[in-house]
C-alpha cells in the first residue's frame, strides 16, 4: 500500500458510507470531494444533486461553490433551489445529506448561525443555507469536519439544523420528517455515529494512529464507548489514485480536514 495521509483517508472513509444508486445532496468542499470519490470508485450510479439546481452532473475538478460551472457539467437537468430542496429533499427522495463542519453537539445538532445572543451575537456565522433542510429531511446524514474541541461542544447554544435535538424521540415530537436518521460524523480521529436508542454519539471507528483518548481529548462531550471499536481500513490503490488524480488534483480541500 502506497503512503497516504490521514487527511486523504478521512475523505476516503467518508466516501465509503455512500452506496451505489443513492441520491446524495452534498455541499461543496469536503462533502462534495467524498461524494465525487464515491461516484468514481464504488458508486458509479449515484445521483448527486447540488442546491442551486444541477441534478446528476458529472462534476469536473474542483468546484469552489455550489454555483460553480464545474458542478453543472453534463447534468441531466439544471433546475432550481425549489426543485432540489422542495421536490427532492422535502419530498423524501434524498438518501444521503452530506454536510461539512461548524459546531456539532452530542445529539448531532449543528450550529452554523451564532455564538452568543441571537440579536447581538459574539460571532455571527453564515446561517442555515440548505443545512437545516438537509438535516430535517434526508434519510441519512453524513458529516465530515475537523476534530477540534470547540467544534464539538456538549450542547450547541443555537440549533440551526436538528440532530436528535435532546433525546431519542425529540425529532418525532418536534415534527421533523425523518424521525431517526442515521447520523455519522467522520474526522481525522475516527468515526462517530448517533445511537438511535439514546440520541447520542458513540465512537464507531478509530483512524490509524488515533485512540479513544485522542477523541475524548478533542471532543467537548463524552461520546459513548462501545466494547468493540473497529479501525478504519487503509485506502485501496484505486481510492487513493482516484482522489489524487480525479477528485482533488490541486489538493485544495484535503488539507482542510
Amino acid at each position, binding site marked *: 500500500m502506497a503512503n497516504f495521509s490521514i487527511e486523504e483517508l478521512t475523505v476516503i472513509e467518508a466516501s465509503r458510507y455512500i452506496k451505489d444508486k443513492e441520491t446524495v445532496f452534498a455541499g461543496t468542499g469536503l462533502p462534495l470531494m467524498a461524494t465525487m470519490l464515491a461516484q468514481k470508485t464504488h458508486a458509479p450510479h449515484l445521483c448527486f444533486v447540488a442546491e442551486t439546481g444541477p441534478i446528476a452532473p458529472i462534476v469536473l475538478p474542483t468546484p469552489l461553490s455550489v454555483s460553480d460551472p464545474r458542478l453543472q457539467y453534463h447534468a441531466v437537468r439544471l433546475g432550481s*433551489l*425549489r426543485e432540489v430542496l422542495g421536490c427532492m429533499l422535502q419530498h423524501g427522495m434524498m438518501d444521503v445529506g452530506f454536510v461539512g463542519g461548524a459546531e456539532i453537539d452530542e445529539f448531532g445538532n449543528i450550529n452554523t448561525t451564532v455564538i452568543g445572543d441571537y440579536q447581538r451575537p459574539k460571532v455571527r456565522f453564515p446561517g442555515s443555507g440548505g443545512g437545516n433542510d438537509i438535516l430535517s429531511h434526508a434519510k441519512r446524514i453524513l458529516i465530515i469536519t475537523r476534530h477540534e474541541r470547540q467544534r464539538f461542544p456538549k450542547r450547541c447554544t443555537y440549533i*440551526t439544523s436538528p440532530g436528535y435535538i435532546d433525546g431519542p424521540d425529540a425529532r418525532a415530537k418536534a*415534527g421533523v420528517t425523518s424521525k431517526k436518521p442515521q447520523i455519522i460524523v467522520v474526522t481525522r480521529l475516527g468515526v462517530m455515529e448517533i445511537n438511535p436508542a439514546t440520541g447520542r454519539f458513540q465512537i464507531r471507528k478509530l483512524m490509524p494512529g488515533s485512540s479513544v483518548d485522542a477523541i475524548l481529548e478533542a471532543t467537548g462531550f463524552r461520546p459513548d464507548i462501545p466494547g468493540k471499536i473497529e479501525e478504519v481500513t487503509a485506502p485501496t490503490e484505486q481510492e487513493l489514485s482516484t482522489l489524487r488524480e480525479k477528485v482533488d488534483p490541486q489538493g485544495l480541500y484535503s488539507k482542510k480536514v
Partner: protein
Amino acid sequence: MNEESKVMTAREAVEKFVFDGATVGLGGQNVGRMAMAAIHEIVRQGKKDLTIYGCNLSINMDILVGAGLVKRCEAGTGNLEYFGTTFNFRRAIEQGIMEMEDYSHLGMISRFLAGEMGLPFMPTKSMLGSDMLTQQAKSTGKKYERMENPWNPGEPVLLLPALRPDVSLIHAQRADATGNVVIDGFLALDVELARASKHTIVTCEEIVSEERIRSEGERTSIPYLYVSAVVEQPFGSHPAGAYRYYDYDAEHVKLYQKCAREGGKALEEYLNHYIRNSESFDDYLEKAGGIKKIIALIKSMKRMV
C-alpha cells in the same frame, strides 16, 4: 411587438425602481449570475435603508452592507463558501448595525412560492425543532405559525408568510427588449423571486430579438409580464460568472474578500476605486482587469461547455 421596450441603462433602472427603504430581492447564488451592475448602481446612487431578501446572499449583498445601505436581511445565509464568510454582513450583525432574520433556504423559497402564487403563506416541514423558531430579530413581527396538518391531526407543519419584494435584481444570459428572459444553467431562486416581486430589474449579457424568443418559447425562464426593466450589460455578473458565457473571477473575489475582511479603509478604498469612482460598469470592468481578464474568463468557461 406586443409590448413596448423596457430597455434602459442600469442607472435609469435603479433610479426608477429602487427607492430608500425598499425591500430588494437578490437572484443568483454565490459566484453565479449576480446582478452586479445593478448593485454597483445602487451604491453610486446611495439608495439606503434597504431590506434584502434572498437565499444564499453573497458578494452582492455584502457590498451593499459594506456601503452602509442595508438595515435588514431575511435570508438563508450570507456566505461565499470556499472564499469565506461575507465579512461586512458578519460585522454589521455583530455590531448591531444590521438585523438578520434567519430562515432555511427552503423556508425562503416557500415564502417566494407563496408570493408568486398570490397566497398569504406556504407550509413547510423544514425548520421544525430548530432555534429559527425560538429566536428572531427585534423588528420581526410574526415569523411563523406552527399548526397541525388538518388532514392528519398530530402532524406539525410550519406556515411561513409570503414575500413580495418591492424590486428584485436578476442577472440572465439573454432577454429581449420587452423582458422575456432566458437563463442558462442553474436557476437558483430567480424564477420564483421574479414572479413574487412587484418589479424586477433584469440585467443580461445580451439583448436578443423577440423573434428568437418566440422561436423557442419553451426556453423562456421568465416571461415579459414580470419584468420592469431590461439592462444590457455584458459581463454584468463579474466577479461572479454566467454559465456558458464566462467563469467567475476567483482572483477578484479573493481581492474583494481581503478588503471586506479588513474593513475600514481597505473596504472604503475598494468601494471608491471600483464602484463610486467608476462612471459605469464598463469602467469597473476596465479596472478589474479589462479585456485580458475577460478573455481568460471566457476561455475558462468554454473549456467546460
